[in-house]
């Protein structure tokens, strides 16, 4: 899917995103950030921050930079920042495949529900590894192709719908880990049967 189409889709989502997706996405986002090894003074990049569902979970003793392709989504995030006086958080519009930060700018990178909606997930991971310092933490929350027969069937059925709304459901977890070159320390799902995986990895560069 091309960037322009993705922008249009997410501009359309921005008004209903929180209501629609908070229930599904937020518990995993909250869990993943809570279990990130965030230390005082850490600088964290949140890739695909969207309307800012994740922002209230980050501790105030770290600084967070959120990026998203959709400026419409970021306006909602900015509203949350202003309303809650989250002075440690900034948001910018960026393409995750072509990030505007210097090398080694961040101690940790959080990527939630992004790698399956971009045209090239490995380009995103290349950029993530570039801007994250060596030894930094990379945490990913995403859907990967299921090994569970029942979920696999459900995925096949809903795949055409997913494609229309900008998601791909055919990304294989092990292939993704191998190709992105991440040193994955932990990978699990919050429930025994779940659509989303949580990965905790180290950036070996």
């Amino acid at each position, binding site marked *: 899917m091309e*960037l322009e189409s993705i922008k249009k889709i997410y501009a359309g989502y921005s008004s209903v995103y929180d209501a629609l997706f908070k229930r599904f996405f937020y518990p995993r986002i909250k869990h993943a950030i809570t279990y990130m090894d965030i230390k005082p003074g850490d*600088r964290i990049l949140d890739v695909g921050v969207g309307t800012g569902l994740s922002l209230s979970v980050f501790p105030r003793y770290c600084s967070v930079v959120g990026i998203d392709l959709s400026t419409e989504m970021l*306006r909602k995030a900015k509203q949350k920042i202003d309303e809650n006086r989250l002075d440690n958080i900034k948001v*910018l519009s960026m*393409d995750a495949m072509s990030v*505007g930060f210097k090398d080694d700018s961040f101690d940790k990178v959080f990527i939630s529900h992004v790698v399956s909606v971009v045209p090239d997930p490995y380009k995103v991971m290349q950029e993530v590894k570039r801007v994250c310092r060596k030894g930094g933490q990379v945490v990913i929350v995403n859907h990967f192709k299921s090994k569970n027969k029942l979920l696999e069937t459900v995925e096949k059925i809903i795949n055409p719908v997913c494609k229309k709304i900008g998601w791909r459901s055919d990304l294989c977890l092990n292939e993704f880990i191998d190709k992105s070159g991440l040193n994955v320390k932990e990978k699990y799902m919050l429930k025994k049967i779940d659509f989303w995986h949580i990965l905790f990895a180290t950036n070996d560069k």
Partner: protein
Amino acid sequence: MTIDKELLEILACPKCKGKIKLTEKKDGLACERCRLVYPVKDDIPVMLVDEAAALK
């Protein structure tokens, strides 16, 4: 518009990854190498190459 000093220090041009700086009018972020200005809309810097203007 103000951009946090700490943020400005880590920002780079998304195209060439080189240095960028605030424009004189402080209404955008300029990359001299690529001759591009990235706009700031509603206090949100838009660091997208396809939305950048030519640097005059």
